[in-house]
């Protein structure tokens, strides 16, 4: 029973929103390679969604292109989620390993990513009056992914529903803490840099004079 290939597992997990991840866990399935592919596709989806959108919906600022924001919006954010979830759930008796959290969360993102690609393509064929169709697709994809993420966290840590809710909430808090620490760290590095550069300037000046 359930001797699926990796591709079939992905399809199964996405289409069976409640028991999909449970079965995956029971069968110890899910591949890291597929998960990586999904995240890379997520990255490209974000770029396509911003850059290749139909001009009738919005005028893209296509004078400059900076890849960093897209990178942060997708890959960095996802990594932060993974690390945050792992660190929270290790304390809260979660059974998931970092690897499993990564894989399951990535699988859960598939409807959202798909929605982005579909809408980007559709935006070239529809006009503003028909935007409601795209909106429908967007809402469906986003909600679907939200339920899947919840289901993934629940399955990977073997939590009850209530505990899953609190875990998701705490993960978001953890992500914010990480952000705060990052800012603190950046400020510190800047201070050190200024200190070093001041000393350097001073020394150079003394040597010259």
């Amino acid at each position, binding site marked *: 029973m359930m001797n699926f290939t990796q591709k079939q597992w992905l399809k199964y997990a996405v289409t069976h929103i409640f028991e999909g991840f449970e079965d995956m866990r029971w069968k110890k399935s899910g591949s890291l390679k597929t998960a990586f592919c999904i995240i890379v596709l997520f990255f490209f989806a974000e770029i396509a969604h911003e850059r290749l959108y139909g*001009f*009738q*919906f*919005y*005028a893209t600022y296509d*004078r400059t292109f900076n890849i960093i924001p897209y990178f942060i919006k997708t890959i960095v954010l996802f990594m932060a989620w993974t690390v945050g979830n792992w660190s929270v759930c290790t304390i809260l008796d979660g059974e998931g390993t970092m690897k499993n959290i990564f894989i399951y969360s990535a699988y859960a993102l598939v409807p959202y990513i798909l929605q982005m690609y579909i809408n980007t393509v559709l935006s070239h064929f529809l*006009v503003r*009056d028909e935007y409601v169709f795209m909106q429908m697709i967007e809402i469906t994809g986003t909600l679907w992914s939200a339920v899947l993420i919840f289901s993934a966290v629940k399955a990977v840590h073997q939590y009850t529903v209530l505990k899953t809710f609190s875990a998701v909430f705490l993960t978001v808090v953890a992500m914010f803490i990480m952000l705060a620490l990052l800012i603190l760290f950046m400020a510190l590095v800047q201070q050190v840099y200024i200190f070093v550069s001041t000393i350097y300037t001073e020394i150079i000046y003394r040597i010259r004079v």
Partner: protein
Amino acid sequence: MKRIFIKFLTVILVVIVFGNNISLTAVNASPYISYNYDRWGDAVPSQAGYIEKRTVSGDDIGADSFDEPSDIFFDGTDFYIADTGNNRIVGVDGNLENVSVIYEKFKMQDGSFTTLDNPEGVFVSDDIIYIADTQNSRILLVNRECKVITEITKPDSEIYDSSKTFLPERVIADKAGNIYAVLGNITTGCAMFSPQGEFIGFYGSNRVEPTAEAVGNYFRNVFMSDKKKARRKRQVPSGITGFDIKDDFIFTCTASSSVLSDTVKKLNSAGKNIFADRDVSFGDYELKYDTSHYKIPDSSICDIDISENGNINCLDSVTGHIFQYDEDCNLLFIMGTVAEQKGGFKSPSAIESAGENIYVLDSQKNNITVFTETSFGKTVHSAVELYNTGYYAESLDLWYEVLRRDGNYTYAYNGTAFALLRKGDYKNSMKYAKLAGNSELYNKAFKEYRSVFLKENSGKIFTVFIVAVVFMVFLKIRKRGGRRK
């Protein structure tokens, strides 16, 4: 071979030297760089729509030199200048060559004579001269024979706060003879008087901008006692600085660095701002750091003028820029600067237009700078005029001409796209709408393009669809059949 080479080199050199000379003189003519805003809202160099022709001082026209003149008005034949420091109104002929009349002394109705004290505004209509006699706190309506018809002084009305002074700075009158005056230190709009000089009320006041502070104060006021409220600083709108009348509309401008909304308003007879619901902005989007004053200057539009063809000319007193918009508030040209040279201003105070010329009065240089339309300006103006009156197809060639001369001229891309859309050339309309950055127009063109495409190719699309369905069914059946075996 060598000879040919030398000949060739000479030709190139000649072209470079003379070609450069020609363009250099053209560039050096103005002390400012004419620019325009591209579709992203960034300033880009642009062809000049106006070029300064000459400056006229008081001595040039045969009157003594001006002293801090503050208003200029053109009634169709003559110019009238409010020569504030000399306490007089100077009339000049339409070519700004000879003084035609100087008003200094007026005969009151009781036979006595009166003089002006720092008049700041002048307006002429139906042979009546309206003078904002600022320091005398009155508005004078005089006829050509210097006889005072009506004298309007501080209104004795409940609406008018009697503790406030009455300092009329600008005055205009509409067709019915109603008089409007901009008053110094009054923030509730301009005062409106009946033709007989009775105070009717205030007209067209600015809104208080909903800044965070204003909104916060509103909520705080709910919980405050009246006593405390009375002691607090009140949120008041900025007062109107200048205005002009065109047909049934009064255009006002407000020179305040802190106000972003209501800088330019188009008021109908009920005092409602027609531009209020539209997403339009006036003046510079972003000002350059001023290296001589060590700060980013504040934009402040101090006077406004509506030309005969409906274009709106705004004068920025701080940067010396003149902005010209068409009647739909699309930016056409920017010119002028603060400079010592011809074409620059020190302290521009008023703007007026007549025909193809724009006149700017400078209260410190004490002269009038005359700007005249270039051939590029003429092309743009005729294109805009045709376009705004609905002759889209006719405007198309002119738009192409504008784009040929200045490829950065954003508004021309909009015009071309719309003209092409009307013409039925949807594909090119899409192209130009994209270049204009106008996604709404692109949407319209694309909608039409798509429906035409679907109509033309419906047979092909349908065939492909059916073939695809048949093929899929065939595949399914074969798969099933294969399994059965």
